């Protein structure tokens, strides 16, 4: 019975709900812009990683290498887009 119960998946599901609640806290509490953005970024990337590994089984097939290459490239583009936008629109704007 113990082997049949998907313990990892249930915990993963609970954890993803927690992450969602933490992200929701940004509008529930009166946080500064900086704090809010940091919380959103951290929870968003954790959430995406959780979904990919836990529920979409990214690490379990023989294409592991190409899937992770894709993910890292996507990560690179996402970070560049977000921080590049912050740079051009906020930090570097005169």
């Amino acid at each position, binding site marked *: 019975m113990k082997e049949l119960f998907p313990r990892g998946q249930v915990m993963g599901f609970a954890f993803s709900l927690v992450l969602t609640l933490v992200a929701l806290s940004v509008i529930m509490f009166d946080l500064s812009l900086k704090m809010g953005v940091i919380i959103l970024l951290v929870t968003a990337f954790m959430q995406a990683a959780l979904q990919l590994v836990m529920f979409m089984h990214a690490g379990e097939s023989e*294409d592991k290498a*190409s899937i992770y290459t*894709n993910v890292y*490239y*996507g990560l*690179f*583009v996402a970070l*560049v*887009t977000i921080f*590049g*936008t912050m*740079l*051009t*629109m906020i930090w*570097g*704007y*005169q």
Partner: protein
Amino acid sequence: MDYFDRFAVPHPSPAIYASMVAIGLTMIAVVAGITYFKKWGYLWREWLTTVDHKRIGIMYILAALLMLFRGGVDALMMRAQTAIPDNGLLDGQHYNEVFTTHGVVMILFMAMPFIIGLMNIVTPLQIGARDVAFPRLNAVSFWLFFMGAMLFNISFVVGGSPDAGWTSYFPLASNDFSESVGSNYYAISLQIAGIGTLLTGINFIVTILKMRAPGMNLMKMPMFTWSILITNFIIVFAFPVLTVALALMTMDRLFGTQFFTMANGGSDMLWANLFWVWGHPEVYIVILPAFGIYSEIISTFARRNLYGYNSMVISMVAISTLSFIVWAHHFYTMGHGAMVNGIFSITTMAIAVPTGVKIFNWLFTLWKGKIVFTVPMLYSLAFIPIFTLGGVTGVMLAMASADYQYHNTMFLVVHFHYVLIPGTVFAVLAGFTYWWPKMFGFMLSEKIGKWSFWFITIGFNVTFFPMFITGLDGQARRMYTYSESTGYGPLNMLSFVGAIGLAIGFALIVYNIYWSTRYASRNISNDPWDARSLEWATHTPIPEYNFAVVPTVASTEAFWDAKKKGFKLFGGKVEKIHMPNNSGVPFIMSCIFFVWGFALVFSMWIIAIIATIGIFACMIHRSFEKDHGRYISVEEIEETENKLRGAK
């Protein structure tokens, strides 16, 4: 009558009424023609429901050619309007609509589908596959693109075209400054076509990663396939940004949100930022496959293997990465500090390095080659110097401080035409001529092809080179007229003359297709150019399963080795082949998408809701449908192979 007022063109002119009549008559003629020749069944069975990558590719190319002429007429109108000072041919509003649709049509509905069409036809053949990974999805991609393009095209007779430039900058594109539904058309038709492109991206990444012939590892893929793989990576990572930006734009325009407004915490510049986060990679989406096409053609007609295979691959990967970190060079003048402009200047100039590596690789491939001057090769040879000129002016524009002088002048306009026309248009014309015999079983006339090549190349330079000069003299882009005292008149007239040359060149291509269809010899081999990669190893016309036996590969030029070194390409024996069934759902769903888009453009909510339900119904149907494809039996394969003159 108030209800129908919004469908009227807000700024009518005799030309628009004439086009309305022409469009109406053409549609009646097409429908009547198909009915008279009893071709509805044929059309439905063989084309509208097809999932065959070769047919989808041909439809993409047909649509792209149509759009080429639509965008070309826009271009001619602009050149005619600016040919003489204080010209009254078009008024300001009309001119705005013309340059906006010219840009959108040429980039999104001509260059993209032309490239995706060639990639559809060639890539599965080059990797020895039977079809793409998701054939049904491929049909969805095509029909979504097609419906998006058609929705965009009806804008100029129903409700008015977008007029805020192809970049559609806010606040100009907001409801306050663009009151007509034109910009709604922009947001929604690009969204529909964009979904199709995104699906293509996923489809081809999976195809290339999973369906290569035995023995073909990544570093043994033909260069065109490599360029397509990288292009599709860029599509998958760049297009979501456009999707989001267009969704925000749609909400701003239809539902009164404030993402890109200047008040209430919105930021109009955020649009420009997001647009170019997508827009700059988009440039490489249309240019990298062109590099792949040139690599194939130059190596075939220089009769040498491609120089520096590894450095070609590495430089394409480098370009794809750099393409994501340069976007702010499109708006240096928007008011960032020196640091931001400095960073983006340096990344932009860095792109010239891998591009330069590629240029030198092509030159070294040509070096000591036995060059054959066919039409595709002529385009490739003309590409190298002209594109380099475009690239060098790009480095000039990359310097942020100097860009304050060039920004939004004709100099910029010529720069990107010098990059995109030899880069993309020459490439697709070259690829189109090169792969034509594989698609249709006869060759295009070399003689007429060479005439059109010279008209296009000379016409292009006569059209655009004078604008370098007027641009440096300060002629702004998108200016519908100018006074005689500016002195731009004579050079603009020269441009107009060149534009006519270009138009003749493109008309000659159509004549070439007509002439060759009627008179060209059908008695050609499967490999008329003596080429090197796998697409030439199968029969012409290509059987629907592509290869009766899946080829085995041991080098980047397996077919060349098979011809010259006795390499055994087809080892196995014929077995039954599993193929996908045709389906009408992609077409029907895309038609519903068209209705959905049209309803949203005009805020007709009830129709939009019904159409949304219809779209979901199609997807649910697909989820529960039991369609396991069909098998082609060994006897049937052997019969086909024998008919195509002998199994291998």
